[in-house]
């Protein structure tokens, strides 16, 4: 059953109130797809009826939130981003690792593809510079609010469908073992990454300082006020010489002036104001 504009608005307002996440116009299909089964299960015949049940039933409300807020996650999903990582950021981090420990944070890591993707690139870069053991100087942390997503990430096992979403053949062959219908990631990469349960609305100081933070397409779901709060927290969790990357369609400009925006090869990176680091960032537009 198709969701009407009015029904979409009802759920949009509900999600905004409950978790501060804004569903933009055009996400009707997402709400419709993810709530159809809940609608049938609850005995509702329309999305309006489902909404009426949701506002008086906390359990059903939790299910609706869980269904809508779940993200899809991909491997090396944005080629220009991973080219930037591979060509600039990872070599810089590997160079840094020769002198000190390097900490990387995948914010809202979901089922782990981004964190593990970076782990693979770091491992490859360490081998390329003739020092495979350098990878032991890296600590990659993935945080997410969902225990289920974190458990799946820790298991390091992915379906054929999950693998088809952006995993390169060369890395699949090198780092994954087929086990029945699943692909299991090699321990050499799994051991580089730790996953922790974390709500971005909570205090994040305990996570410590990072050299590289990926917060891509996470904040788009949050209200402006929460965006401001989270950018401020990210800044506090970054070393002075650290780098932040956000989604290709995102900009932090309206929410924080803690960062300098730097453009490189069509991608945008952010560094803390007054940062002295250099990733070979040719152009500063901040």
């Amino acid at each position, binding site marked *: 059953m198709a969701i009407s504009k009015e029904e979409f608005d009802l759920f949009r307002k509900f999600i905004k109130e409950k978790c501060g996440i804004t569903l933009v116009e055009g996400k009707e299909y997402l709400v419709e797809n993810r709530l159809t089964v809940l609608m049938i299960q609850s005995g509702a015949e329309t999305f309006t009826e489902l909404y009426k049940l949701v506002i008086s039933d906390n*359990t059903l409300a939790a*299910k609706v939130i869980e269904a809508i807020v779940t993200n899809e996650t991909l491997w090396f999903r944005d080629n220009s981003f991973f080219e930037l990582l591979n060509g600039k950021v990872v070599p810089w981090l590997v160079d840094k690792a020769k002198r000190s420990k390097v900490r990387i944070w995948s914010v809202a890591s979901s089922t782990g593809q981004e964190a593990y993707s970076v782990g693979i690139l770091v491992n490859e870069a360490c081998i390329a510079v003739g020092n495979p053991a350098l990878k032991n100087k890296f600590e990659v942390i993935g945080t997410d609010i969902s225990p289920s997503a*974190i458990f799946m990430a820790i298991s390091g096992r992915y379906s054929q*469908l999950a693998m088809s979403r952006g995993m390169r053949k060369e890395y699949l062959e090198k780092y994954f073992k087929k086990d029945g*219908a*699943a692909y299991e990631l090699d321990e050499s990469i799994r051991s580089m990454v730790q996953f922790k349960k974390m709500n971005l609305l909570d205090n994040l100081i305990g996570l410590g300082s990072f050299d590289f933070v990926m917060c891509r397409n996470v904040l788009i779901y949050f209200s402006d006020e929460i965006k401001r709060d989270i950018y401020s927290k990210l800044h506090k969790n970054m070393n002075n010489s650290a780098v932040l990357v956000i989604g290709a369609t995102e900009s932090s400009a309206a929410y924080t002036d803690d960062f300098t925006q730097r453009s490189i090869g069509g991608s945008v990176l952010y560094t803390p104001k007054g940062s002295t680091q250099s990733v070979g960032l040719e152009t500063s537009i901040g």
Partner: protein
Amino acid sequence: MTTREDILDGLNNIAEIPTMPEVICKVDEVMNSSSASAASVADIIINDPAITLKVVKLANSPLFTRGRRIDDVRQAIVQLGFREVRNIVLALSSVNMMRSVNNIDHKKFWQHSITVGFAMKALAKFYKKSDLDEEFLSTAFTAGLLHDIGVLVFDQFFPELYQDVLDSAVEGGDEPLDGLELQELGITHCEVGGIILARWEFGIPIVDSVLNHHSPESASEGKMLAELLNIANFICNNQGITNGTPLQSLGFSDLAWEELGLSLDDSREIIESVRVEAEKSQVLLSLSGS
């Protein structure tokens, strides 16, 4: 009449839906009485020579015990405990139910079901509140063993309708099985399982947990069991121990995980425990002749 009504009507009229194995009814009856002893439980089991032989063989398997050699059922009960022997007898008896399957891999189905049963008990070690008694753990095993019985009923008694569900599952990508059943048939294997287990006169917590194992938030009297089932079932699927249908749940209930007080720091150890339980179920299944 809708497909759902057809299926409900069919369930009421199908004479061949098996009853609970007699040996289990008797064992449960004795175990629930105050005079339960190794001898009284053994007396019931030895009336079934095939089961007796399998129980003794299993009791000597290194995965189940590292004790001295066991020669009879009574020693097996002393070595493994009443409840473990009862669980083994239930599993061995259940595997022989509804054997004429159509679209489902019978062996995979029971490998999954027995492993979920054992995993329910294994997970208990990781609770924050691990004050669960032996009786609860035995109930947990039963719920785990029989949680997908609705799948087997669909497959045996409504094979053509269920083939349509499985076909749409293959085409549909990562849609959960119960969602597809609901869309295609108007009824899920969870509900059918609940109906069958109620007919077999299992207690309300077991029926409630099986009914809600994909939506533990909706469970009431069997809530803790349903939460455990939801997580044990997911971990088995995640480890490739699936029930023979092409699609599985995509994750477990976050609320269930939080309410049980499980810790993500234990994830790797939990996975390892479930793998050991899978080996146990493999041994058990090999003895059943499947």
